[in-house]
């Protein structure tokens, strides 16, 4: 069976059919191998089985092997607060509290005063706060809480959103409190159920017969919307969110064929309805770029003519917004592969949008790991189709996200410069690189976690850690956890490398060594090693022990330890694992081209 084809086909089926054939789908997806385990506890105020059934299919299709724990119907509070032992035993990576508007314990009555209203808001919020606190304290996992959808009916009509006795007003207030709680607590993430319900439409969301029969509040369609959004959040937390949007040009980013119609005749701007729709899609793409998604062009066109499209006075996107630009007559799948190599990204982090179904079919057949949404040919719908796919879900925006696109543009400039130097060393010197390599600091914990969970290529062991685990490691005495930042004459590359070492019997075991591919071939790994050895020595380590665990994506670091001068200790016959060792006493620093900032470490 072609697993990827199968995955695409499954996810396009109506939800009822997925539910009907779920067991077979799970069995088939499970047999595809190389799945990343994830343990999810679902604590519900309603019957959660349907959401979990769908979530299982979606996570398997995303390359995870999920294990679930479900509370009994409406026992989310009891499970989290009174019996956290059972949950702790399950060792969830993520606990999801799934509650609906019906789970609100006490609503204000029609004649409620402001004081009563505020008291009710406080007591309801406190009840949930108790749940989150208990999970953080006794289980220590990441928690996802959804906010509430608006009530199915409001007896006060429009006033329901205004009066203190209005249920709608009460839900709005609680949702605001949940938002505040989420922004105070990095281990608490919010799923915006209210928006999901609104986008689905209440008439397609609530299913009253099923509520009375089985205590399921939503239609299968509603359950699917919840499961898709949740799968996207989990995927994003564990590094599966998409990173690059590849776009066709003619009839995708503008109306018409620029090679035939000419620059003056393409549809973009605000003059016609069609032009407005293309402008809106360009704006949507630009907003994705601003939040860290890379944009690339893949078009069958003459390069100069294609580029000229972005000189149109009404073009929202400009040439410099694209991290890569391919316009030629080669097949699109070959161009997309070239983009992936250029940007050092895996094909599974690509989404391809093209109005032409033949191109979409070709790319999804030739490159099954690229996501090819069925966008149709109505550009007015493209933003909502991409939105509904949750491809670029993010659980938090780091400073790196907001400047990533610029970094990639600077990388292109570095490549141009490189060709002008006599030797590579001379080029590296010209970059005037300065590294900051330190033990984990609280301000970087979020970025560190994000980098660990999304780095697949320069990753020796591909171990994933939750934010809670990283916080814990940075406090433990027997761990040496280093991050590395690198700046150069073109700008700040940000925090781009992490090493986690664990000291046992005078041996520092390197549980994790990762680096972002944007600083490949810059000698950053030598700088990291220099500091690592120095700190290891200070901790009393006699040698470093490194492990390479092969995955489908990390072949580039197979010889990492060998290159750094480690001696091989053992190697699995099939090459899937190798162990390496380096004595620290005789080590002398090797960094030549990077200045390492003096440590502020006590």
């Amino acid at each position, binding site marked *: 069976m072609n697993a990827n084809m199968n995955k695409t086909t499954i996810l396009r089926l109506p939800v*009822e059919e997925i*539910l*009907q*054939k779920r*067991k077979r789908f799970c069995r088939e997806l499970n047999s595809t191998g190389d799945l990343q385990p994830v343990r999810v506890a679902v604590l519900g105020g309603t019957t959660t089985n349907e959401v979990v*059934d769908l979530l299982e299919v979606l996570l398997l299709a995303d390359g995870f092997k999920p294990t679930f724990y479900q509370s009994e119907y409406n026992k989310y509070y009891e499970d989290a607060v009174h019996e956290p032992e059972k949950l702790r035993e399950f060792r969830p990576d993520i606990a999801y509290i799934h509650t609906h508007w019906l789970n609100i314990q006490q609503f204000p009555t029609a004649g409620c005063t402001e004081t009563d209203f505020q008291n009710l808001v406080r007591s309801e919020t406190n009840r949930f706060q108790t749940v989150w606190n208990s999970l953080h304290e006794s289980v220590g996992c990441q928690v996802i809480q959804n906010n509430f959808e608006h009530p199915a009916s409001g007896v006060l009509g429009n006033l329901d959103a205004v009066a203190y006795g209005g249920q709608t007003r009460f839900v709005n207030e609680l949702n605001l409190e949940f938002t505040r709680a989420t922004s105070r607590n990095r281990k608490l993430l919010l799923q915006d159920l209210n928006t999901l319900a609104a986008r689905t439409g209440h008439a397609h969301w609530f299913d009253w017969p099923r509520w009375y*029969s089985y205590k*399921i509040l939503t239609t299968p369609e509603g359950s699917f919307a919840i499961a898709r959004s949740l799968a996207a959040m989990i995927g994003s937390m564990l590094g599966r969110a998409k990173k690059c949007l590849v776009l066709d040009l003619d009839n995708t980013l503008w109306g018409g064929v620029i090679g035939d119609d000419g620059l003056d005749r393409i549809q973009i701007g605000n003059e016609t309805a069609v032009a407005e729709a293309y402008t809106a899609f360009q704006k949507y793409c630009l907003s994705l770029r601003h939040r860290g998604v890379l944009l690339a062009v893949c078009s069958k066109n003459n390069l100069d003519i294609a580029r000229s499209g972005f000189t149109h006075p009404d073009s929202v996107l400009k040439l410099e917004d694209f991290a890569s630009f391919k316009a030629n007559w080669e097949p699109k799948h070959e161009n997309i592969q070239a983009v992936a190599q250029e940007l050092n990204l895996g094909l599974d982090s690509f989404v391809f949008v093209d109005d032409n179904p033949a191109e979409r079919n070709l790319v999804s057949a030739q490159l099954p790991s690229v996501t090819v949404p069925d966008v149709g040919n109505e550009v007015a719908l493209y933003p909502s189709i991409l939105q509904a796919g949750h491809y670029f879900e993010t659980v938090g925006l780091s400073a790196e996200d907001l400047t990533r696109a610029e970094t990639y543009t600077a990388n292109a400039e570095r490549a141009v410069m490189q060709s002008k130097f006599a030797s590579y060393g001379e080029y590296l010197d010209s970059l005037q690189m300065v590294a900051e390599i330190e033990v984990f600091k609280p301000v970087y914990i979020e970025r560190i976690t994000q980098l660990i969970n999304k780095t697949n290529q320069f990753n020796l062991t591909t171990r994933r850690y939750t934010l809670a685990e990283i916080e814990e490691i940075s406090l433990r005495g027997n761990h040496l956890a280093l991050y590395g930042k690198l700046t150069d004459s073109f700008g700040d590359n940000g925090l781009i490398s992490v090493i986690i070492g664990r000291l046992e019997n005078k041996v520092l075991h390197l549980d994790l060594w990762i680096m972002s591919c944007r600083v490949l071939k810059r000698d950053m790994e030598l700088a990291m090693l220099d500091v690592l050895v120095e700190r290891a020595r200070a901790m009393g380590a006699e040698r470093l022990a490194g492990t390479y665990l092969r995955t489908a994506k990390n072949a580039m670091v197979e010889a990492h330890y060998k290159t750094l001068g480690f001696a091989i200790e053992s190697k699995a016959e099939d090459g899937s694992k190798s162990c390496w060792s380096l004595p620290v006493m005789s080590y002398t620093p090797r960094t030549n081209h990077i200045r390492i900032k003096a440590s502020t470490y006590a």
Partner: protein
Amino acid sequence: MRSSEIIQDLQIIFSDVLDLPDLCLTAESNASNVEGWDSLAHINLVVAIEKRYNIKFALAELRALNNVGEMADLIIKKTSSQAAK
């Protein structure tokens, strides 16, 4: 549509949902004599059947059913009353 045709149709849905490729469904089949037909499987079965015939069961209608034969009769009744509309 006759009851026996519907039961053949239902057999496909039941064997998918219950993951029993060799399931043999008869008019007398019910939750107590079909392996795995528990309350959770029942929810999935109802969703699939409603989708297949483009019908919605009323709460009381489902409660009153004793076996697959009665379910098939109910489906005939609901689909023909829809067709008459």
